[in-house]
């Protein structure tokens, strides 16, 4: 099911409300087109816009690579990258859209991932494309 008709701003707001330690969330498609993106108020942007774009492209390429072996190891559910200063969670929303979340490094990522996966499930099972 596609989320092409989704209200991405509303999805972004729901993601940001999952945990106060979420700094940044964006939804983009596999071509790199950003559907919606935003920072929490008062959060300093650690990467320049160009660096953010490169990071997003890295995530797209990583998910394309993961999808190549999905016939053997199953579909990718999520990926967590921990850096010294932050954590990054990415998960495919459908075959063409990725949810990309950045949190503070001290964030408890497990409940954030669990809630985001539930949000995704709600999204995919809602007739209107939204929870």
């Amino acid at each position, binding site marked *: 099911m596609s989320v092409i008709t989704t209200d991405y701003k509303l999805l972004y707001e729901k993601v940001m409300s999952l945990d106060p330690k979420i700094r940044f969330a964006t939804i983009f498609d596999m071509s790199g087109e950003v559907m919606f993106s935003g920072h929490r108020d008062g959060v300093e942007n650690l990467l320049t816009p160009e660096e953010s774009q490169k990071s997003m492209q890295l995530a797209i390429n990583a998910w394309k*690579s993961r999808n190549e072996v999905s016939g053997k*190891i199953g579909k990718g559910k999520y*990926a967590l990258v921990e850096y010294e200063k932050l954590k990054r969670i990415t998960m495919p929303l459908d075959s063409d859209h990725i949810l990309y979340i950045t949190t503070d490094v001290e964030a408890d990522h497990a409940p954030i991932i669990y809630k985001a996966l539930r949000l995704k499930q709600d999204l995919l099972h809602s007739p209107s494309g939204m929870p």
Partner: protein
Amino acid sequence: MDFEKLLDEIMNTDKHIRYATVCDMEGKEVQTRIRDGVTPLLNEDETKETLHYAASAWKSRNKFAPKIGKGKYVLAVYENLRRLTLPLGTDHMLLVTWGIDGGQVDIIERIQNILSGDYTRNW
């Protein structure tokens, strides 16, 4: 570099670990352990491609280190498998896979503990 000992220790941290390998940053395999009785899900070419891509991705991530710090690990969770990659110094990467019934937090913490206090470490 005693990667054999490192891999043996990692394999012993949890029975759910299926596979552990060390490769260089071009993705070339250096040492590998596969648990007895486990059949790899990926064939040789797919494994090579996976290692090559994972190593390449780590090189890309390291470009952001001045801003967001060094990358510590990547955990990718699939329907049938969990896969952890992390850099070993600047020249090597560790890749570990385990099934979906294992405790991932424990495994990641145990591996990080092995690496942080590793008495054999000279990479």
